[in-house]
């Protein structure tokens, strides 16, 4: 999908200074509730790159059942997604498009690097056309190593994002990084 128009974002939470009215405890409380809810409904964008995408599909299928946690809503449009699961090798040719998709997602957004290739280039790190880790392009919140990781590992990775949200560990993250 090539969407040339870049999104003109209204300020997301945390990007601009919260107004004085909702500073302090009220603001903090609202943020806690929001983060709790975010953690329980991380909708991934349908975005498979390579081998790991098959395991990602398997994680969504009946045996591993990602839907138990409310994560099964794979949104085809990045505009409606919260989580980008980078499942597979990112090549130089794909990198700008991956960045575009990331930019198209609304804040707050999270990135999960799935598999060795997305983490650091994996077995293809020495190649002339492979990006050495997706964290050179977009900020990554959770790394799930493996080649490919089992579906359980992926689910665990998504639950790690949830745990970080509940513990408010992602709070200080700069937006639009």
């Amino acid at each position, binding site marked *: 999908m090539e969407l040339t128009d870049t999104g003109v974002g209204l300020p997301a939470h945390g990007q601009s200074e919260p107004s004085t009215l909702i500073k302090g405890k009220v603001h903090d409380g609202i943020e806690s509730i929001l983060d709790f809810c975010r953690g329980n409904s991380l909708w991934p964008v349908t975005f*498979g790159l390579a081998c790991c995408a098959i395991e990602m599909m398997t994680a969504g299928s009946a*045996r591993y059942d990602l839907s138990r946690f409310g994560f099964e809503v794979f949104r085809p449009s990045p505009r409606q997604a919260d989580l980008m699961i980078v499942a597979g090798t990112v090549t130089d040719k794909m990198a700008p498009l991956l960045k575009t998709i990331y930019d198209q997602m609304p804040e707050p957004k999270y990135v999960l690097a799935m598999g060795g290739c997305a983490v650091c280039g994996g077995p293809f790190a020495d190649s002339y*056309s492979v990006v050495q880790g997706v964290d050179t392009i977009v900020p990554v919140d959770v790394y799930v190593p493996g080649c490919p990781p089992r579906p359980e590992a992926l689910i665990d990775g998504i639950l790690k994002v949830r745990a970080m949200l509940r513990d408010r560990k992602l709070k200080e993250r700069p937006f639009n990084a």
Partner: protein
Amino acid sequence: MSDFITEADGLETQEFILNLGPQHPSTHGVYRARLIMDGETVISAENKVGYLHRGIEKLAEGITYAQFTPYTTRFDYVAGALQPWAWCLALEKLGNIVVPERAEYLRVIVGELQRIASHLVMLGSIVLDFSAITPWTYVFNAREDISDLLEAVSGSRLLVNYFVNGGVNADLPEGWIPKVEKALDSMLKRLDDFDRMVSGNEIFVGRTKGIAVVSAEEAIEYGITGASLRASGLTFDLRKDSPYSIYDRLDFEVQSMPAGDSFDRYYVRLLEIRESAKMVRQALKQLPAGDIRAKVAKVWRPAPGEAYAAIEAARGIMGYQVVSDGTVKPYRVHMRSPSFCNIGIIPAKAPGLTLQDFIAFIASLDFVLGDIDR
């Protein structure tokens, strides 16, 4: 041709470009089609691939033969176990290695199980393109049974790195064979459920019958191989026509369908799953005792030379050309991947299809991007 295409009765319509992919739910990876559309009708299509090009042939020149073996599973990642077979065959030809009989049987068993798993993914993804999620979960459940077997034998669910130069990696684990029988029974039962639910479905048949008909001549011209070729009425299958390994000792039919449309490309795979299950059962019955690997030096230096080996992989002919210069590293590795040639037909057949038919068409070709881009 559908009735949807109408004469523009004096109405000015404007063609527009639609980029289908690389991030699109129905392109099964990072395939991109640049479509010129008139409303919902495709005027012309152009393949844009390479978004997963990992430069594997160059990488091979920098590592040893044994090191490259696991890489071979990463191209057609849906059918991981079958890919190293062609590579190992080429190496064995290069080094004149005779594979023990038991290893050949194990290769056939694991290879056919992998073919079943791969075809199940195809069946699942074609119905997923028609937004049928329920049948998709049925076939993925069935695939899980097979994945468990592959994991037990090789340690990996998806990228089954079981074949090595001169044989196979490990012998069968304890109690594996009864599990195979059980898993095949359960898989075939689920497949029958799926078959009943989808193959006779009026909507599914209506959307696939007569769509993008590829005649046998065209299929040969375009270098289409594998199940997509057999859907055009040909019974071309290297397992039968040029038997490698022990395929000549197995009793099986090459499945083919006559019409060459999207439905046949789908259905021939369903038939092949049943045939493969039969072959696994036969091979298990005939399984001899003995070594599982020929003696191959740890630091293996084949004599300078060149070898070419081709097998019938899940998507068609998988061929490896290996050129050796006498060192521990290959001088040049070239792979012929079936999906890369199979997608060549897309621009020829796309004009006149509606977007929905186009998606059914590319799903029925069953390509894997790792296999196209390498």
